[in-house]
């Protein structure tokens, strides 16, 4: 492979990861606040269909993106209402919404199947795009990909470097303590779930109006991305930067599958397409195994020096969810 095609491929990886990045950041914000939005897979599909439909009928691509975000926010509102106000199982409500929104997108999207519609065009940034290698990789994308770069940084800044971000961590880790410090835990959870939902919704049009333009119904190949984004959120340890790296890794593996296709002719393409999933399970295993009880016991039984090394490796890989994730908060 020439250097040129390699660069184009890698730039494509960065672009094709952008929908996943929005979804992962959205889920990270929601889960940081203590609410699992398990509806993600359906939300993304419904927002992809809805965003395309809006952009197609109004011929306005910005409205399409806003439509996708609105759909995501509304679905998140249902999750928030059911889990915060009614204290129902977040997992149950989210799962039902995941299936319902998916089917709704196929049902309502039927008339829009395969229509040629508007899509975002690449917008090379002057000067910067002429830098060798770096320009090719980072500065010849469409607007939504640039926004995804910025979003990673802003989300990280918000969560780890601002006062409200500190409070956000508090309502997910120790809601009672945050409440004593004056945070209105449940209102904040509503706000973050809805903002997170809007970002998850943004992933939809980022597919249907940019990276995989158009609406193809059940054969769009979008079914499954929401579940991937959920796994990446865990892989990322509820950190937007590490989550974004996970999304890039996934997009890279998918690209690698395509590149290897001519080499591994005896392996059907559908198999290579799902190759990232076993790897996902493996990474989830690696980041979680430090939490398993038998690992701790084994570690304790090890000689001092070996234990230190293993404990260090495990600690570096390990991620732990916000302590109050999925637990309703009630003032006494």
């Amino acid at each position, binding site marked *: 492979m020439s250097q040129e095609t390699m660069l184009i491929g890698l730039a494509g990886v960065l672009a094709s990861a952008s929908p996943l990045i929005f979804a992962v950041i959205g889920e990270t914000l929601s889960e940081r606040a203590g609410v699992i939005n398990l509806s993600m897979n359906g939300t993304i599909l419904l927002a992809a269909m809805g965003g395309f439909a809006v952009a197609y009928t109004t011929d306005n691509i910005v409205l399409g993106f806003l439509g996708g975000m609105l759909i995501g926010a509304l679905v998140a509102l249902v999750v928030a209402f*059911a889990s915060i106000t009614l*204290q129902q199982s977040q997992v149950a409500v989210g799962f039902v*919404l995941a299936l319902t929104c998916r089917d*709704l997108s196929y*049902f309502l999207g039927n008339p829009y199947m395969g229509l040629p519609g508007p899509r975002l065009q690449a917008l090379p940034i002057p000067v910067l795009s002429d830098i060798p290698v770096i320009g090719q990789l980072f500065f010849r994308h469409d607007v939504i990909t640039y926004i995804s770069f910025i979003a990673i940084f802003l989300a990280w800044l918000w969560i780890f470097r601002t006062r409200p971000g500190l409070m956000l961590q508090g309502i997910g880790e120790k809601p009672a303590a945050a409440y004593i410090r004056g945070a209105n835990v449940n209102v904040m959870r509503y706000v973050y779930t809805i903002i997170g939902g809007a970002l998850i919704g943004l992933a939809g049009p980022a597919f249907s109006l940019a990276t995989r333009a158009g609406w193809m119904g059940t054969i769009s190949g979008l079914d499954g991305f929401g579940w991937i984004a959920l796994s990446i959120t865990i892989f990322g340890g509820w950190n937007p930067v590490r989550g974004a790296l996970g999304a890039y890794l996934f997009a890279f593996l998918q690209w690698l599958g395509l590149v290897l296709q001519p080499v591994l002719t005896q*392996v059907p393409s559908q198999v290579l397409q799902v190759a990232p999933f076993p790897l996902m*399970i493996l990474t989830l295993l690696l980041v*979680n195994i430090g939490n398993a009880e038998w690992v701790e016991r084994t570690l304790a039984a090890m000689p001092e020096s070996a234990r230190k090394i293993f404990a260090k490796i495990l600690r570096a890989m390990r991620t732990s969810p916000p302590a109050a994730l999925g637990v309703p908060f009630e003032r006494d």
Partner: protein
Amino acid sequence: MIKDRFGNLAYQLAALLLAFGVVSLILISVDASPSETYKNIFKGSFGEMRKFAEVLVAFVPLLLVTAGLLVTFSSGLWNIGVEGQVVLGAIATTWVYRLLLESSLPPAVIIALAILGGMVGGAIWAALAGILKVFGGVNEIFGGLGLNFVSTALTIYLIFGPWKRPGVASMSGTVPFPDEFSLPLLANLRISPWALVIAFVGIVVIYFMLQGTYFGLRLKAVGKNFRAAYLLGIPTWQYAMYSFLICGALAGAAGAVQVAAVYHRLIPSISSGYGYLGLMVAMLINYQALWAVPVALFFAALNIGSIQLPIVMKLDSSLSGVLQGVLVLFVLLAAGVRQKFGRKAQ
């Protein structure tokens, strides 16, 4: 108590009406007549004996999966991997059939072995999710989801790779098995009475296991309060593994029936989403085994009846999924409203 029952029923009835109301609004929004649509779904599922037989064909795997999920739900586990367990059941069944294709065993024995193989296959796949959960700390939702995708890939690999049709491989699946390998079907219908028997045995066994045995009681104790059950001396992780194995075996049986009585071969979409649908049924019946039969039948009828919609009304058949989902959603919301309301009243 009686008043409580009545109150509960009222809430569920309200949820049912609301669900149909919302779906009707969705239908009106696409210029379709709701009454016409519901009539077509009904006609498409109960209108003729042939169609009702199709409903039963869908009902069998759905009931088996629901029975299995009642066990994992009882022990507090969210076995989303059940879809992959159905798939592995189908793969294992196909594998046993292929092994015994040339054997001189009587067909009845081969079929029984194949179904048994399917149950083992499903149980093994469930055990993987269980091992990931118990020993790897990987939440069963994510382990199961990942395994679902892997199982689909495995099916496609087998169909296009080692088990491909002589000549060219295709999405239509592997070479169909000879007729004598099929569970006997009713005359002129696609439904096998044996498949129905398997499904009913499955739900009855699970009902009695959960209601009447010490094992079931301890399983529910683990589900209600993991920590307390552990402190009381129940070997919690073993019970978690048992419930995965039982659920996987039942899901595997569902996959086995798909091969042995419906498709007579392995096809790419062999599970047809029955795993996910079973999760919905289990939630809707609030994990009470008695309701599994009517609700699974109702959901199967919606699925089969909506196949008519694209032909008769140019509507997408995914409407059945929307209706099922909205229904479960409103029942969940109604339960929440009721609990909140009840708490305030006290």
